[in-house]
């Protein structure tokens, strides 16, 4: 299986770290992984995205042309990526910020109130963790356990963050699982 996932949102929404955690989790599962960011000059407020491949096959082209799933955290991201998702794929929409509905019928769409959940948990910085949980639930790209591990690795110097973020991940996960 080859998961090709795009994550996209405003600069401050943490999509880069989110993608790295996913890739790291895949690596922990001995899968072939790669993470590729969009990069550009400083245009804060612009939209940033990254693409992650988690695959059981040997590594191939590291660039994603037709994602198997996409997470869009703001409206411009929805506009940009909805049409690119592979037929049969997954689209996760941050319904807290995006009122607009998806139009594609050949993909599975989840509307997750990412900001609201994070706000509820008391830390807007965790929206990316909520989204990550949702993504894992919707795609099964990696196990939840691996995501926890990858978080622990990446933030090894800040173990106190673990608990709250775990909750955020779980909330996102549950939100999709219950959908």
């Amino acid at each position, binding site marked *: 299986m080859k998961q090709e996932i795009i994550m996209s949102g405003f600069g401050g929404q943490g999509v880069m770290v989110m993608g790295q955690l996913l890739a790291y989790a895949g690596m922990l599962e001995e899968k072939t992984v790669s993470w590729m960011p969009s990069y550009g000059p400083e245009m804060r407020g612009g939209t940033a995205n990254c693409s992650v491949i988690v695959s059981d096959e040997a590594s191939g082209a590291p660039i994603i042309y037709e994602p198997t799933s996409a997470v869009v955290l*703001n409206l411009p991201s929805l506009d940009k990526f909805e049409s690119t998702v592979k037929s049969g794929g997954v689209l996760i929409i941050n319904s807290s*910020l995006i009122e607009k509905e998806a139009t594609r019928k050949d993909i599975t769409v989840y509307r997750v109130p990412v900001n609201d959940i994070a706000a509820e948990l008391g830390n807007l910085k965790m929206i990316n963790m909520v989204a990550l949980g949702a993504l894992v639930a919707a795609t099964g790209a990696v196990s939840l356990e691996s995501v926890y591990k990858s978080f622990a690795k990446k933030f090894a110097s800040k173990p106190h963050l673990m608990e709250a973020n775990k909750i955020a991940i779980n909330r996102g996960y549950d939100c999709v699982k219950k959908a």
Partner: protein
Amino acid sequence: MPKPVFNEERCKGCELCTAACKKELIVMSTTFNGKGYNYATCPQEEECVGCCLCAKTCPDVVIEIYK
């Protein structure tokens, strides 16, 4: 009466204008504009003395002051 007019979509929510207005008339919106920023507004525009300090401070020429 002078009146500040904001080009909301151009506002980047930097808040420099809020500090510039000696009359403290400018407040940030709680909603977002199309670019995702909270934008500057002047709810009590009748209090404006037309000093133009807000406009001169804005890096994005968001504000025009009408006579």
